[in-house]
């Protein structure tokens, strides 16, 4: 009984921190999308990039940042629809193709990632190397 109370309290606490600073980016709620994108990397939250970026990225999966990540036509459409529906709103000049090149991303990580951490992660696109809650859409644990 005690255990239950503690875990409920922890859950409430987590939910509160997550919403208090507004740093929840959402997760991929669609199973197909989460599994397909998540096979190689964190299934990045759709809200990180605008629709125009996702369209280009998912429209070119056979050359996905240097890898062949091709999916069959039906699955590609499904994944694209999900990302378009949940993409970031607003107008963007020169919309980014890489989350790691977004201005806020660069600013947030500039003085935070040691060389050792960077080496361990292998690449800046490996969110989970440092952000343990990334899969739950929570990135503010640094």
């Amino acid at each position, binding site marked *: 009984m005690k255990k239950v109370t503690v875990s409920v309290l922890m859950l409430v606490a987590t939910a509160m921190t997550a919403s208090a600073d507004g740093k929840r980016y959402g997760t991929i709620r669609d199973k197909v999308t989460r599994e397909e994108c998540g*096979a*190689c*990397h964190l299934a990045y939250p759709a809200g990180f990039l605008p629709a125009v970026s996702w369209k280009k990225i998912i429209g070119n999966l056979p050359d996905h940042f240097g*890898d062949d990540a091709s*999916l*069959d036509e039906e699955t590609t459409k499904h994944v694209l629809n999900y990302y378009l529906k949940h993409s970031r709103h607003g107008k963007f000049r020169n919309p980014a193709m890489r989350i790691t090149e977004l201005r806020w991303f660069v600013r947030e990580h500039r003085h935070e990632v040691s060389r050792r951490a960077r080496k361990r992660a*292998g690449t800046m696109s*490996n969110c989970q*190397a440092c952000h343990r809650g990334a899969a739950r859409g929570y990135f503010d644990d640094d």
Partner: protein
Amino acid sequence: MRKSLIPLALSGLAMTLTPALAGSGRTGILEQLQAEAGQAFSAERGKALFMARHKGGKPKTPSCTTCHSKSPLNAGRTRAGKRIAPMAVSKTSDRYSDPKKVAKWFRRNCRSVLGRECTPLEKGDFITFMMSR
């Protein structure tokens, strides 16, 4: 009326059990590849394919070992940093048992590493090698 339900229930049971028997999917995949290749598979050739540095693919992935590590018994890592379960069947028992998954990953990775699709013989050799480890 009631009797006729028994075979139905049994076939239902068999269908539920099938995914658990990873080998049956794998056997089917190998049989299909065998029919297309028309030649016996070789674990040795599969090993050579796995270890070799290839030309013609994408520059960042010249070899299977780039991501899968040099030993099929070890875990690998995608270029984006995610762990890849070992390729050897002895380590990852459900490998090469889902035809759709197998087709998808051979298509992608052969294009990335070799710059072309793999032949049925290459695929069969590869799986045979991974079953031998």
